[in-house]
Structure formats: C-alpha cells, structure tokens
C-alpha cells in the first residue's frame, strides 16, 4: 500500500492505494479528479509541463513562457524538453495559442502562456 497526497486541488486529500496484481484499491479521495489522479500516479504519473521557448522580438531574442494544456507523462519529460529547446517563435502570439499541436504524439498541445504582440 502506498500513501500519497492528491495534488489536484488545495484540499490535498490523503489517498491510500493498494495494488492487487493490477487491480487498484483506492481510498481517501473526495472527488473523481482525486480518483483519476490516484489511478494515474500508479500507472503513469502525469504533470503539466511548463517551460520557455525562444521568442524573436525584432532583433532581440527573448523567452516566451509556455505550457502543455494537458498533463503529460513524467517519463517523457526529457524528450519533451528536447523538443521545446529547439523551438523559436517569430510571430505575434496570444495567450493560449497552440505552438506545437499534439507534442511528441501526445494528446497535449504546447501553448503560449502569454500574449506577445510585438515582433
């Protein structure tokens, strides 16, 4: 049995998860998000990934904050960072705009965290 705190919301419910050869026994959650969270934590932990990409503002090179719009597997982080570090946005962009659709074949898109209208 493992114990973890759910991190889906500030309630931080204390969950207990027992793995009966593939069948999971989960207790302590107060909502469906918590249940789903527990299931994923054991099988494939996922997090929202936030980072920055290069952004060309005229001649100046700056950083644009980005994020995945859905949680992505923790195990794919290194690969995702490799993709992110090669991106350079050189167009006007608004908050929420998709920079990379279905990044690394995952369901999540890489989107802009802010609005940058000068280029």
């Amino acid at each position: 049995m493992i114990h973890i705190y759910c991190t889906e919301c500030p309630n931080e419910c204390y969950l207990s998860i027992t793995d009966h050869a593939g069948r999971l026994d989960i207790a302590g959650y107060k909502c469906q998000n918590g249940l789903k969270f527990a299931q994923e934590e054991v099988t494939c932990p996922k997090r929202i990934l936030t980072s920055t990409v290069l952004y060309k503002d005229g001649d100046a090179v700056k950083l644009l904050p980005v994020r995945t719009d859905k949680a992505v597997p923790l195990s794919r982080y290194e690969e995702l960072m490799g993709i992110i570090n090669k991106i350079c946005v050189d167009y006007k962009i608004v908050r929420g705009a998709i920079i990379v659709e279905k990044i690394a074949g995952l369901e999540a898109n890489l989107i802009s965290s802010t609005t940058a209208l000068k280029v």
Partner: protein
Amino acid sequence: MKDFDIGIIGGGIIGCGIARELSRYSEKTAVFEKFADIGAGTTKGNGGFIHAGYDPFPGTLKAKLNSKGCLMYPDLARELNFPYKKTGCMVVGFHEDDLHSIEELYKRGQENGVPDLEIISGDRIFELEPEANREIRYALYSPNSAVTDPYKTTIAFAENAVTNGVRLFRNCEVREIRKLDDGFLLKTSRIDFQVKYVINAAGIYADDISQMAGAEEFHIICKHGDLIIFDKSSEVNMSMSLFPTSTSATKGIALGTKIAGNPSLGSTSIIREKGDIDTYKEGVDQLLAGASRLVTNIKNCKIVRAFAGTRAVVENNNNDFYIKPSRRVPGLFHVAGIQSPGVACAPAIAEYVVEMLLENGVRLTTTDYFTAVRTDEKPFAEMSDEERNEIIARNPAYGKIVCRCEMVTEGEIMDAIHSVVGATTVGGVKRRTRAGMGRCQSGFCQHRVIEILARELQIDPCEVYYENEGSNLLFGRLKGADIQ
C-alpha cells in the same frame, strides 16, 4: 614595453593617494593594480573612519602622520569632491579603569598634536550622542574625528591623478622585478614596464613584492576584520561614532553612522591567513555583543551587509607603518604595513612619501599643469526635484531607476562606467554608485547592472565579472546559444 619614472605597485587608498601627490610633478608616474579595480584590497574592507590621532603611541610614524592626515581631509574632500563628514567621536568608558585608559589616550593625543580633545562625563555625553548607553560614565570626545567613503576617496585620488597625467593599469599584477642599471624591469600579467623607481604600496602583498625585488626586509601578517552595516531605517540614528575603551579584544571596534547614513559596526582584528576576507560568524557575534554595550537599541537593528577585510601588519616593527627606502635595493621605496589609521593618514602618507623620494635623490619637477580640483555629480538620491528634472531633461537615462533600494539611476551607472577611472565590474559599479548596497543586496538590480555594463563596455553579459577574473555571474545563454 612602457617607460615610467615612478611605478607605484598597489592601487589602494595609499597607492592612489601617492599617485595624486606625484601628479603635481612632471615626472611620469604609473600605478599597477593587480585586481580589476582600484581600492579592491585592504581599502575595500575598510569601515571609513578617519581617526583623529590620539591612539598611536607618540614617537611612532603613525603618531606623526595621523593627526596631520585627519586635518587635511576637509580641504581635500572639497577639492576632490568625495564624501566626508566631520562627525566627531567618543571613546567611552563605564568604570574607573576605563577612565584611566581615556586619560592615557588624552595624554597621547596631546603629545601627538591632536587639537580640541576633551575628557567629559555625565549629561554632556548624551547631549553629544543621544543614542549612547546611559550606563556610560566617561568619554574622550574628539571633535575632529570623521567618516568618509574609502572607495570614493580612493577613486577621487585616482581620477585626479589620471586627469593630471598618471597612468593607471588595472588587472596588472607584477610577477617579476628585475634590477637594471637605471631602474627596474617589471614583468606583469599584462606587459613589461621599465621604471626608474618603485614605490611598494602593495598592501598585504608588500612583502611578496619586496622579495621579488630581492629586498627581503620584512614579513607581513594579516589582520582580518569583520564589519557590519545595518539598515538605514533602523531606529538607531547616531550623530557620531562611539568606541569602547580598548582591550585587545575590542580595540578598533567602532559603532557609528556611515557617511551614506547606515549605522555601521566594525571591525574585529584577528590574525588570519593572507588573503582571507571571509565573513566569520564569531566576528559578527563579537561585534554585536560589544555594540549593545555602546548603544542598547542596536540589537533591534537589521543587518543589511556583513563583510570583512584584511590589513597588513609588518612583523617586529612595533605595530607601526613601514615607510622607508629599501635598505638593500636602491630605488625601491616601501610603504608597507598600512593598517589602522591608514585611511586617516593617507593624505599625510602621500606627502611623506614625496619628501622621502626627494631626500633620496629622486628628481621631481613641479608642473604648471596640475589641476587640483575634481568635480563629481551629486547622487540622484540626494538631488532636489528641480535638479532631477534638469538632469533628466539632459539625459532620460537619469529617469530610469535601476537600484530601487538606493535610488540609483541608469544615467549614474553609465557615468560610473565612463568615468575617468570607470567601473568595469558589478562590484565597481556598486562602490561608485551604491547600486546593490541596499536592503535587497542587488536582488532586484543585479541583472540590470550586468546588462548596462555589457552594453556600455560592448562585451557579452556572460563576460561581466562580479569582481575579478573568474567571478563571472552568468555562464552562458540558457536557450538558443547558437542564435545569439
């Protein structure tokens, strides 16, 4: 290869003071400073007190130069435009024994020619310094004691010297000294220099320099001192400095207000390894323990900066300055072991050194082209609104505040970089403008200072040093290193 008549090794307050004095003469003088900036050795770790001269033992060189130097400061500060404030000070005591020490200092002061000293007691003490601990019974009052900014004084000396023709070489470490028929060959970390005479003002490295020249005549031990600067908005607001009567543990510890307005405390004095300027917890604790005896409220004050310095003491020399021509090597002059009261004595040492040169056959020809006066802009933080509007109208960069804690503008930082002896490092900008000396200790402004240095010096931000080579703050671009 460059040729000079006089080469000064060491660009601290002493070396720069001597350079300024020598710039009155047409002979070619150069200063060789191993660090990236002047005043980066012992001067950098100094608390800024100008002692009046009652402490040195009569008959010593210190005694001869202290009062003289102290009294030279008011005119010099006006001439060269560096911060100076005649705050006065008191050496205070609690018991009979302390009174004996105070009387001893008074006697020494009289012999050393220190004017206006008074032994006082009772209410007069608290009229002069309302913050003083009410348990204090006796005091030696010295109205001529003062405070200055040791870095700005050094910069003022250096800039005036350079304006008057002295050459200054920074990042220039003397590594080898060869005696020639008519002088010396100095091999440095930059280029070679040929000089007729060498003045050894190399601080804690003066014995190394001496040895390099084949004149192994003295050994230096290093006295380390911790210092503390408190927040400006502290409840404690002292008009003058207070010293305890000295025991070996407390000698030299002063509690006062720095010229910039921060209460300050320092320094301890303990022998440590050459070059050790680390902050020691024991030192800080010792300072704080002693300070609350002088001003009880000091324990409520917040520490803004704890730093440390080291000063050179020539061993077996009666704790005195070692200013004399080399016994072994003609043409080499030592100005070594300049510990406290070095700052107070600096102007007098400069004149004394010139006399020493003349007495030893060095030809010095007074020049008609000497400019005694140096101008400097008032800090933006001290300007009136009219002055601020004026300077912003001239250059909008003065309307951009970079250091919020000390209200230092981009314009001032640019001035500091492009000044006669300009800043080339973050530390250099800090000492010239106060950017980074405030409450947040450059947390907010460091990245802007680096940006401005890089832009003005036309170097990459990753090449900007904090102090000396190897003190890079930034290691490279995070993303897109190939694009930049």
